[in-house]
């Protein structure tokens, strides 16, 4: 068991290094693009939001709202998007007995973690220093929300990666599927803004709890939030379990053992 964990660590490290080179190469900014790509996305959307919302002049901190929402979106979604297309380019490498599909999915999700987290840190620090946003009221709570969504993204990445490996058509339907999830995830709203009758439905969506937590941590008492961290924790456990089982099934399927 101990030996196989050491092997898995080695394999994931090798896969991450391999991904870094094939995605952005060694030229120019190279590996920094992992962080700059999500950072630019969040920044551009935030600027658009800022100018759009400014007309409706509000006391609500629009920039921090957009920053948290789009950073979290990339944290939960990018890993799954990358895991969906993981099999084909790595098929040749799976010829090495110790390289498992699970490792391929994990390597991709870990890289997206690093990118989304780095981008969030970079933007929130830069914006705080520039005085564009107020610093978070409760940094610890922001961190817990962020970590729970990171965990969720791993579980989701395993599920989406494994389903795409088992049914190649899933890779194609995942993207259109992810758009309604994106709208429902809480990027655009706080639960408090919704009619009471809608709230209990939207709180079934796990990502909403992460958004509520991170924003609660950021804005503190000026907002009312409805998160339930234990719900997100339970969802994470269940999704991770399903993801690991599906990855194991996909591995057997890929090695022709049914």
């Amino acid at each position, binding site marked *: 068991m101990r030996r196989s964990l050491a092997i898995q660590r080695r394999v994931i490290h090798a896969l991450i*290094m*391999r991904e870094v080179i094939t995605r952005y190469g060694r030229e120019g900014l190279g590996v920094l693009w992992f962080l700059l790509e999500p950072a630019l996305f969040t920044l551009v959307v935030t600027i658009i939001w800022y100018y759009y919302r400014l007309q409706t002049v509000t006391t609500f901190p629009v920039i921090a709202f957009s920053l948290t929402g789009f950073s979290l979106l990339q944290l939960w979604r990018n890993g799954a998007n990358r895991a969906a297309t993981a099999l084909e380019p790595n098929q040749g*490498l799976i010829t090495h*007995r*110790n*390289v498992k599909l699970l490792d391929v999915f994990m390597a991709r999700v870990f890289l997206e973690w690093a990118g989304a987290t780095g981008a969030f840190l970079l933007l929130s620090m830069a914006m705080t220093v520039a005085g564009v946003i107020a610093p978070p009221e409760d940094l610890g709570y922001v961190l817990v929300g962020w970590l729970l969504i990171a965990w969720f993204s791993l579980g989701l990445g395993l599920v989406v990666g494994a389903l795409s490996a088992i049914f190649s058509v899933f890779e194609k339907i995942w993207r259109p599927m992810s758009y309604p999830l994106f709208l429902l995830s809480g990027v655009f709203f706080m639960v408090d803004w919704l009619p009471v009758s809608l709230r209990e439905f939207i709180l079934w969506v796990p990502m909403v709890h992460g958004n509520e937590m991170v924003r609660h941590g950021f804005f503190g008492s000026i907002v009312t939030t409805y998160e339930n961290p234990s719900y997100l924790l339970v969802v994470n456990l269940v999704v991770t379990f399903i993801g690991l089982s599906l990855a194991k099934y996909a591995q057997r399927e890929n090695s*022709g*053992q049914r």
Partner: protein
Amino acid sequence: MIQLSGVHKWYDTRHGRHHVLNGVDLCVRPGEKVGILGRNGAGKSTLIRLLSGVEKPNVGSVERSMNISWPLALSGGFQGSLSGLDNLKFICRVYGADYRDKIGPVEDFAELGKFFREPIKNYSSGMRSRLAFAISLVIEFDCYLIDEILSVGDARFRDRCREEIFVKRKERAIILVSHNVATVKQNCKRVLNIQNGRLIEYEDKETALRSYMESC
């Protein structure tokens, strides 16, 4: 040692089940040079992939107590958009070797020149096999699984491979599958034929070679 016992392997296709191996037994001891001859589609590559552990048998078992290479074949083992050097680094990391002192030997053996730093997808099949061989030699396995790639190399490459494996690494085992009689004849002491999903062993090498040539 590698021990295959009662191995069956099939694939489900749209037109029903396709049986590739129907009860295969094989035991390979350290240092043995085993050649397996079979026609196209006889199940040679499947057998090699089962031996390596990339694929699992549907029925039966494969036991390995040797450190076995990945299948050295024309496809697989590499990532096409990475350079030869980056693939070397990847494989070293996966097998827990330090790549820094391996770059020189691999460059020398593979003789790829500037292509060593070009993406593998631009390689010819000869270049690919030289690289696969060079990398597997620096990792040092107890048993090498060779799927045809000796046949695509030129005479000079084959001579250098023979020197490395059969002279310098006498104690290592080799399992070589091929449809080419000459390759197997030159390199292997023990020869088996694969036919109709079964492995057939003969009383000696000559009989095996003759029987294979007659069946073609």
